């Protein structure tokens, strides 16, 4: 079996917190945020245009571990969020960093909506900061949350925020954008989420990811389970939601249950990948409720997953001890794999 997977050169030195492919369709740019306080920018193409292990283009040091990163309006602009409580914008061409807002605690996630040109950051101070990205970035609108956010994902029109206590808010991005435009610095703004939900999973939500077709989202928990739900509040749509077990191993009659750390939807096929603490990455067809395939176990826990803009590549970041914050991270255990997908490798098989 020809190997269609390669490992990125010069990976971060500490656990990886997030990994993103550039959303541009043919781009092979990858940004990675790490607990070693750096943002890494990789380009998979070499000078000859061959896609391989790629090279590290740039590294941006932060004052504290970086927990999340996302691309902005184009692939020369990224936003980062970290334990230094700041949300930053980094211009990759000029390497300038701008703090666009500061939370009152570590910032867990940051997302950018192309459709509405806003950046939303979620912090453990239980707020969302909504920034309108324009000529000059305005002061953020602050939206209080009922609990600490753990994961955030957006679709073309919705923002899903998964929080502690199994709560989950779905915001209408248009409303958030409106709100952001009226924001006055430092003033908290109550905004009603479009929907409030309780997680379908009984345990802490680990990750959420929205379907690219704006129909719904998948969420995962620390207890080896993934739920697929739909935005549409109608009874029929809600009846379609389901959850399934995954990322478990049976050892001596005990089911060892791993957290599902990462979810990522395929931008073209609408299937999704899940990555677990067991080091396994599986591809699922959320509509047909079938597993498409499962890749051979990676040497350590899967920390982050991302499909490339055209869906031809799947990047997999692995980091040991991510779950329990082990003290030492052994050399060479933090790695980034990029898997080249066959034309139908991630495509759903259709209902049967």
């Amino acid at each position: 079996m020809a190997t269609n997977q390669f490992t990125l050169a010069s990976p971060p030195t500490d656990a990886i917190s997030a990994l993103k492919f550039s959303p541009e369709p043919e781009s092979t740019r990858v940004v990675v945020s790490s607990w070693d306080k750096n943002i890494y920018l990789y380009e998979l193409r070499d000078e000859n245009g061959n896609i391989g292990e790629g090279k590290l283009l740039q590294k941006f040091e932060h004052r504290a571990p970086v927990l999340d990163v996302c691309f902005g309006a184009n692939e020369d602009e990224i936003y980062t969020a970290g334990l230094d409580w700041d949300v930053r914008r980094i211009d990759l061409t000029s390497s300038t960093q701008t703090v666009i807002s500061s939370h009152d605690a570590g910032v867990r996630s940051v997302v950018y909506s192309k459709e509405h040109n806003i950046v939303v950051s979620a912090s453990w101070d239980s707020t969302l900061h909504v920034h309108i990205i324009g000529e000059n970035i305005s002061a953020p609108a602050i939206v209080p949350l009922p609990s600490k956010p753990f994961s955030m994902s957006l679709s073309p029109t919705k923002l899903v925020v998964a929080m502690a206590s199994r709560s989950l808010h779905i915001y209408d991005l248009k409303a958030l954008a409106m709100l952001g435009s009226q924001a006055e610095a430092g003033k908290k703004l109550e905004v009603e989420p479009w929907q409030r939900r309780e997680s379908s999973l009984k345990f802490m939500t680990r990750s959420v990811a929205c379907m690219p077709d704006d129909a719904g989202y998948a969420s995962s928990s620390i207890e080896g389970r993934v739920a697929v739900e739909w935005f549409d509040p109608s009874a029929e749509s809600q009846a379609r939601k389901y959850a399934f077990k995954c990322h478990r191993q049976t050892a001596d009659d005990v089911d060892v249950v791993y957290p599902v750390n990462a979810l990522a939807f395929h931008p073209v096929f609408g299937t999704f990948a899940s990555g677990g603490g067991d080091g396994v990455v599986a591809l699922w067809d959320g509509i047909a409720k079938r597993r498409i395939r499962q890749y051979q176990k990676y040497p350590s826990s899967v920390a982050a997953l991302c499909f490339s803009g055209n869906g031809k590549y799947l990047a997999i970041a692995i980091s040991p001890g991510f779950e329990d914050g082990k003290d030492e991270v052994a050399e060479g255990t933090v790695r980034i794999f990029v898997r080249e997908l066959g034309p139908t490798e991630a495509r759903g098989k259709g209902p049967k």
Partner: protein
Amino acid sequence: MGKKRRGPSLEELLARPWCYYCERDFDDLKILISHQKAKHFKCERCGRRLNTAGGLSVHMSQVHKEQLSTVDNALPNRSSLDVEIFGMEGVPEDIIQGHNQRVATQFQQAEVERQAVTGNPPAGQGGATPGGGQQPAKRPKLENVSDLKKRLAEHKAKKAEALAGGSSGDVTPVGAGQTTSIGFNASNPPAQQFSYPQPYTGAAAGSPYQSTASPVYQNFLPGGPQQYPSSTQYTSPSTYSPQPYTAPTPGQPIGYPSQPPSQTNTPPQTATGLPQRPPSLPSASTLPQRPVMGAPPVNAFQMQQMHMGQGGPNGEGTTPFATSVDDLISGAARAADQAAAPAATPASAPAPSKPEATDEKTTKKDKAKQTRLVYADNETSPEEKMARLSRYAYVPQEETVLAEVPAAVTAPNDTSM
């Protein structure tokens, strides 16, 4: 029916190809080979079918990096990889002989048994080898038919019993429904109790019963679907019909005092009431939801129950009732379902609509199986835990303002603490 095909001859049996691994025999060598590929030489990982166990072993080790230790689906003493089998090739001689012997013994046994059953002359007529199909088959055939009939009748009776028994067993849950409905009756007791004696004393004939029948029906409502067994039973003996009729009536007085009125009512009603029911409709209309037909099936069914209690034959006997009421039953069952539906929905509707029905599924799936969570803290996320580690500690600085941050400032902050 000319010549009846006798079973295959011993030679034919011995010539059949068979599978070394599971001792199954096949019509054709090709089928045997495809059987082996599908059952014994199939890779559990990728489903690929290999030709031999050795091939599968090599495949497993090369493709899946696994070691094949035994042949799948094989008899315990045949699962070894050492014997290279392909179809009938490679089977050790001693095992072939053992197989042949077994086939021969089985064949002879079967032969003896057949002779015992059929009373046929030993295959001798056709020669010691029972090769030729011979003429005899007639007498056994006849016997068989009568036997069959007898057995069929027995079987049907048994089945009917079982069904009736089963259905009465099923009724027990209904009992819960009954108590509630009885409670319901109690809520407006005068009218109903009044009505009840009325019909009974008034006439043993069916018509007056209707009023009482409706409560009966109601009690029975939850059992709606269970009426089906009775209808199926009805098919069995049609000749019994006279018997059951008489049987219930004696049963009546006994049952009457001991059982709730509703049930005692039933026998008379079924006995006479069938045709008369429609006219009695108005009285039933006190309970708007119940269609007329609701009552009869109930009665028939309950009768069965009573009979069952009193004795098996009677129970069987009741079935004919169902015959006469058959269409009514099915119709009533449907009606009952329909009647039950609106009644049920208001009660059940609020339940699903109230909660978002969120984790019903997940709770259902959580079985008792022992599990161990790798990350068991349901309150604090792994990232928060990590953030608390000293090496990741960060104390905010004053200069974090909305401004350009020179690269220098982004140096690690730990030193400043």
